[in-house]
Structures are given as structure tokens and as C-alpha cells.
């Protein structure tokens, strides 16, 4: 067990709570920086995807995990970001400017979608965002003069004021820098009054309101920030694939993003990363295991959906805190070795919180 001796109020909000944090996160950063020399090109590309999805996951985590508003059309923001970035980059805008434009346009769209969120909640919000996702996908497919329609659009290499990023390693570093910046930004946000307000809204809207939190302002802000992060992720996604088409941003992508944060662990920043690792590595694991399964199962096209569904059901039923929750349990078990009790993380069963008449 570790006891932290607190001598200063600032210690409560420090990002690194103790030496262990500093050591392990530095080690992780070092590993990430050294990754291009350690891993083969294919695995580096997968790692880049993990980083990109983590950025989108951070955005969705902020919205769903910390503000309690869940969006079933998040791929739409990803799509808006990707297309804005692709169009602007092809017009010759340098990378940072195009990225900023993509993020701000996504945020603006997020603001618009956030508006119904002020009136509706729970499942209605889910349906509103779902509908919005379908509409955006259709717009991307039909607005052919800009988006190229269903034929898709190619995108040039990123160009940072004359320095063209053309190799996979360079692009990996670009993603790494943006991911680290986004993570630090989210962590900082969460320890600021704004972040606390988000969490208060998640836990109880009524009590948040009575504590003087302006619900409309914070909910729209959460939507905008989340959409902006999704937009950045979309821009990087477009560069990574070098080709985008509307069907990459459909409902299945939205559900994948949700699945990612649920499996990672709703309500934890770690969860976004763990979920992204899961989402990217799962198809690899499935394709590797295909050789060992009987052909009837291994070669069936529905295998991936089946596995995703089963994993999702298993997590919701047995580990609602996701992969991060599992890790917390393991860590607590090791820390308190002989004294871990089974009921320590027992879920509280609440009475059904009705959205209707009480």
C-alpha cells in the first residue's frame, strides 16, 4: 500500500500523484517515442490507428463518460473533420491551419447538434444524434461538387509550412504529438472548474443546476469540445488512409466508437486508450485465430460481428467499468494482497431512475 503524505493543497489536483505515476508514464512515453525503431512498419501503422482512435475516444469519453450525454452519431463529427481537412489540404492550406479549420467546423456542427440536447435527454438524445449521423452521411454522399460523392476523395500528404510528411514514421510522430497534447488538454480540463461542472451534470442534473451550473452552457460546450476532438481525429484518419468516402463514417463506425469507450471503461481517460487498443487489435486477433478454428467457424463472414457482440455483452454484464475497471481491481488486489475483499467493487443496484413520472 502506498500512503501519500499531503503537505500542500496543490497536491490534490496534481496530474502525477506520486513517483510511480511519473515513472510509469515516462516509461510509456519513452516506449512510444522509440516505437518506430522497435516495431515493424505494419505494427507501427496499427499503432498510429490506435492513437487516432484514442483522440476520437477521448472526445466521446468527455461527452459520454464525463458529461453523461451519449452520442450515437459520433462518426458524423469524424466525417465532418475528415472532409473539411481533406478539401482544405487539397486546396493547398498548410496542415496546422487545415487541422484548426477541421476542428472548429466540427465544433460548430457539434454546437448545432448540442442544441436539441438542451431539451431532450437520455434515449431521445441518442436518437437525435443517430438521426444527425444519417443526415451527415447522406450529405457527404450527395454533395458531389465538394466531397466527390460516393466515389470518395484522395488527400495529399500533410504539409507543415513547407515540411512535407510523407513517411509512416513521420506521420506516427505527428499523431503522437497531437495525442499527447489532446490527453494533457483533457486531463487539465477535467481538474478545472469546467471539468468538475461536466462531472456534476453527469451525476445529477438537478443538483448541478442547484449548485449554480449553467446546464445549457456546459452541455453545449461539452458537445463542441467532443466534436472538435472527433474532427481532429477525422483529419488524421483521412491522412492515414489517404482516401475517404462517406461509408467510412456510417452508423457502424459510430457504434464502433461507442463500443470502444464502453469496453475501455466509461468514465476514465485510460478507458479511451484501452478501448482503442481493443478496437484495433481485435480484428488482428480474429484473423490470426482463424487458422486454428474449424473452417465452418473460421471462414464465416459474421465472425467479427459475433465476437464484438459477445465481448460487448460480457463487459456490460460482468465488468461495466470496462478494461480499466478490471485493471483497477487487479491493482487493488495486488496492493492489498491478502486483504482484498470480494465486495469492494460491488455495484450498487439503484431503483430504476425513471425519466417519466415518479
Amino acid at each position, binding site marked *: 500500500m502506498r500512503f501519500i503524505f499531503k503537505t500542500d493543497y496543490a497536491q490534490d489536483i496534481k496530474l502525477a500523484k506520486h513517483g510511480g505515476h511519473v515513472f510509469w508514464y515516462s516509461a510509456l512515453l519513452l516506449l512510444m517515442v522509440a516505437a518506430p525503431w522497435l516495431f515493424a512498419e505494419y505494427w507501427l501503422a496499427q499503432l498510429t490507428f490506435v492513437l487516432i482512435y484514442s483522440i476520437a475516444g477521448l472526445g466521446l469519453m468527455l461527452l459520454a463518460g464525463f458529461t453523461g450525454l451519449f452520442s450515437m452519431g459520433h462518426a458524423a463529427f469524424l466525417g465532418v473533420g475528415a472532409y473539411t481537412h481533406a478539401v482544405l489540404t487539397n486546396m493547398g492550406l498548410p496542415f496546422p491551419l487545415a487541422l484548426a479549420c477541421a476542428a472548429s467546423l466540427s465544433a460548430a456542427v457539434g454546437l448545432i447538434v448540442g442544441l436539441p440536447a438542451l431539451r431532450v435527454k437520455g434515449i*431521445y438524445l441518442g436518437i437525435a444524434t443517430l438521426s444527425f449521423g444519417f443526415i451527415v452521411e447522406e450529405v457527404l454522399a*450527395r454533395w458531389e461538387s465538394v466531397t466527390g460523392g460516393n466515389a470518395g476523395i484522395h488527400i495529399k500528404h500533410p504539409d507543415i509550412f513547407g515540411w512535407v510528411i510523407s513517411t509512416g514514421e513521420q506521420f506516427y510522430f505527428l499523431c503522437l504529438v497531437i495525442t499527447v497534447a489532446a490527453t494533457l488538454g483533457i486531463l487539465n480540463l477535467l481538474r478545472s472548474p469546467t471539468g468538475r461542472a461536466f462531472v456534476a451534470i453527469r451525476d445529477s442534473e438537478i443538483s448541478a443546476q442547484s449548485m449554480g451550473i449553467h446546464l445549457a452552457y456546459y452541455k453545449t460546450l461539452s458537445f463542441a469540445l467532443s466534436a472538435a476532438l472527433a474532427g481532429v481525429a477525422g483529419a488524421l484518419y483521412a491522412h492515414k488512409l489517404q482516401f475517404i468516402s462517406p461509408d467510412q463514417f456510417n452508423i457502424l463506425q459510430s457504434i464502433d466508437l461507442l463500443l470502444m469507450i464502453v469496453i475501455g471503461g466509461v468514465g476514465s481517460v485510460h478507458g479511451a486508450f484501452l478501448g482503442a487498443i481493443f478496437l484495433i487489435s481485435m480484428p488482428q486477433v480474429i484473423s490470426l485465430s482463424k487458422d486454428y478454428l474449424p473452417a465452418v467457424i473460421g471462414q464465416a463472414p459474421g465472425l467479427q460481428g459475433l465476437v464484438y457482440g459477445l465481448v460487448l455483452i460480457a463487459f456490460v454484464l460482468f465488468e461495466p467499468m470496462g478494461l480499466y475497471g478490471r485493471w483497477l481491481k487487479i491493482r487493488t488486489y495486488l496492493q492489498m494482497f491478502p486483504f482484498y475483499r470480494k465486495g469492494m467493487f460491488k455495484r450498487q443496484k439503484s431503483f430504476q431512475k425513471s425519466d*417519466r413520472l415518479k
Partner: protein
Amino acid sequence: MQFLQLVISGVAQGCIYGLIALGFVLIYKATETVSFAQGELMMLGAFCGLVAMTMLGFPYWLAVLSSIAAMAVFGIVLERLVIRPILGQPAFSIVMLTIGIGYVARGLITMIPGIGTDTQALPVPYKDEIWKIGGNEMGVGALVLNVEHMAVIGATAVLCVLLFALFRYSKLGIAMQAASQNQLAAYYMGIPVQRLNGIAWGLAAAVAAIAGLLLAPITFVHANMGFIGLKAFPAAVVGGFGSLPGAIVGGLLIGIVESLSGFYLPDGFKDTAAYIVVLLMLMVKPNGLFGEKLRKKV
């Protein structure tokens, strides 16, 4: 005449949306959870019918009844195995759980060799029959009624009457109403709320199976037909999420709007019409057409 034609095909499509939406509403009223697997239940129902008719060689009516019964049992088992353990958890977990159920159902069906990946037609006795009403002797300008569409409309009407009678007159239906209004009070009155939740799932699955059997002759049976369930959400919301007649009316409205916008508006509006309608509805009247206007109290 053309307008009427479009309206009729819209109504037929709308009945399907309405039937799926009815499943959402049944489950929502009973357990306050939203099932995203409703479209997949419909798909499973259609496949049940297909298997019963082609592989087992059942006659039409026996096949219909047996697949409805099979789906009802499936719904009850599903509720008992996966839904009941997590009742009382946040709505978000249950939504994700039902999405997971949808994935599994779609994956499993696709994995069945032979029938999973193909699209099949359901051999119904009224296939490709057409009624003509009015017009001159050459048949020009006549109102052409597809019997498949008329079957959908008729079956939906009958089902609505049956459900209405169930909820109005039978002991079971009244108990379900009580449980959906206040679970705790219903429990104190000696109503077996948990068993009723199971029955609500069974009923929803049975309704979904009927929708699947009605839709199958129009579109074909394939693993992805469940995606139509995503269009039933707008129907449920437009009607007001907690209202059974609202679900049917919402479905009809969405169906008609979709059919008319497909004809009179440019390409692309047909697929998004339902979503545009629901977004407008949420902005103007979030409780839907028939929704109860209730304020949440502290």
C-alpha cells in the same frame, strides 16, 4: 391517382415501422429500457419463417404461427438470461447490451452456411398478386394494389385491435399497464413485475416476428434486414416514446413522408426524410404526438 398510390405504399411501409416501433414501446413501457435489437429480432423472425417454410416444409399458416411462437419464447429467454441481471443499471449500459445482442444475432445468422449470406424470397401464397381498382378497361389509370402491401396493412390493423383488447380487457394487460406506471406500487399489489417484464419482451419479440414475416415478401430475407429497425426509432419518437397508438401513427407518418419525399423531392431525401422529421419533432415537441407531458420531480 399517383398520389394515392404513393400514400398506400407509404402506409404499407409505415405499418412495418409501426410494428417495430410497437416493440420498442412495449419494452420501454414495461422495463424503461430501449432495445436496439428490435430490428434484429425482426430479422430472426423472418429467418424462422423461412426455415419453417422451406426446410421443414410447414404449410404457410403453421409456419407463421410457429415462428411467432418461437420468437416469443426467444424473447422471454433473452430477457431472463441477459436483460434481467442488469436492470437497474444506467440506461446507457442496457442500450449497449442490446446493441451487442444485435451484433450477435446478425453475426450468428451470417455464419449459418447456406442461408446466412444469401438473400432469399419467402414463399408466401399471395406473392406477386395484384388487385386493380378503377381505371378504364385497359387498366390504364387504375389504382394498383399490391397484395403484399395490403397484407401488411390488414395484419397491422388486426394486430392493433388484438393488442388494444389485451391491454384494455385482459388481466394480464391491466397488470402490465400498472407495472409500467409504477413498478414498485405494482409489486406491492402482488403483481409479478419481473415475470411481466419477461412477457413484455416475449410480446415485443412476437410483434417483431410478425413484422419480419410481413416485410419478407416485399424486401427478401437477409441478415441485414434488421437495419430497418433504425428507421423505426424515428417512428417511436414521433409518436411519443411511451404510447402504443403513437408508435403506429408515428410509423405511418414516417412511411408516408418517406414515400412522398422519394417521389417529389430530389435523390437522397428518401433515406433521410425519417431522420429530418424526427429532428424537427424533437426540436418542436420532444414528447411526440401522443407522449404524456410529464415533468420530472425531485
